[in-house]
């Protein structure tokens, strides 16, 4: 049961990549699309449309 653990540096590199990806999305203004979608009732989500 001696499992080889994934090295710490892999975790940190992936975390930085994820944060960079999120930051790039914010830079592209994707949060505005999220906002636009979230402030209106999503008819598909509630099963109406």
């Amino acid at each position, binding site marked *: 049961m001696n499992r080889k653990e*994934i090295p710490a540096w892999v975790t940190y590199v992936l975390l930085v990549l994820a944060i960079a990806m*999120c930051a790039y*999305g914010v830079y592209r203004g994707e949060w505005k699309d999220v906002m636009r979608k979230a402030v209106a009732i999503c008819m598909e989500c*509630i099963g109406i449309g």
Partner: protein
Amino acid sequence: MAKQDLIKHTRIRKAVQGGWGLLHNAHLAGFITGQIYQGPLKKFCVPGMNCYSCPGAVGACPIGSMQALFDARKRKFAFYVVGYLAAIGMLVGRFICGWLCLFGLIQELLYKIPTPKITVPEKADKILRYLKYIMLFVFVFGLSFFYRNEVNVGMPWFCKYICPVGTLEGGIPLVLLNSGMRAAAGALFRWKFILLILCVAASIFIYRPFCKYVCPLGAFYALFQKVSILRMSFDESSCVNCGACSRQCKMGVDPMKNPNSAECIRCGECVKVCPKNALSWTAVGKAKKPVIVKVAEE
């Protein structure tokens, strides 16, 4: 002692789940007026499953937002939401499922209803667990990203045809509070309502069936279980193979074999029931406790 610890731990976890759920749905006036919150917090996604059309929701649903971005950005990748969820996954993995998901709590409470419980046969269980990855890669990523209707508009496939969270948190309250919605509710609403009933019924007999078999968000976080900063650590030298941890795990994980299993929701109950403290929370890169400490404790 271990039993008392477990009871205390379970109460704390339930309080955190409930408190977090309330925080996500703090727009309580919406449940009276039938109007959803439209303030600035809606630009942020919540980490767990929580429909943004719930009258109380103050944040955005990550799965719905992801599908909306695929659509709104003309098949461009949803960097904001995917990056955000990946960062959370890298930090804590499926800890979100165990501690910060309201729908998970609802299923857990349903499971508390005193009835005979069902154990899904191992083979069927193993196959069904892959279903949530199909939900993620086919319904959330694939169809939402590639499929367009005749007027070149995409749609949130998972939310529209499957998600019982939207029906429970958004559909039912809004249909009850709004006569226009009531009039508009048709075949799709009935379909989603049947799925919700099935999910609720299954939750009474099976522990967190939606999380085990269907949830695409859980599937997404599961991808990061083995590389996340927060991990479960198993000290083989302290283990006496009593099996208490695997018996306690209602997600069907054997922490001795795979403490960072993709199916683990990091509720921490296995840590509490271990009589030898062989299981513990740890952070990546942190040195394991020296074995000599364990020997001294014994």
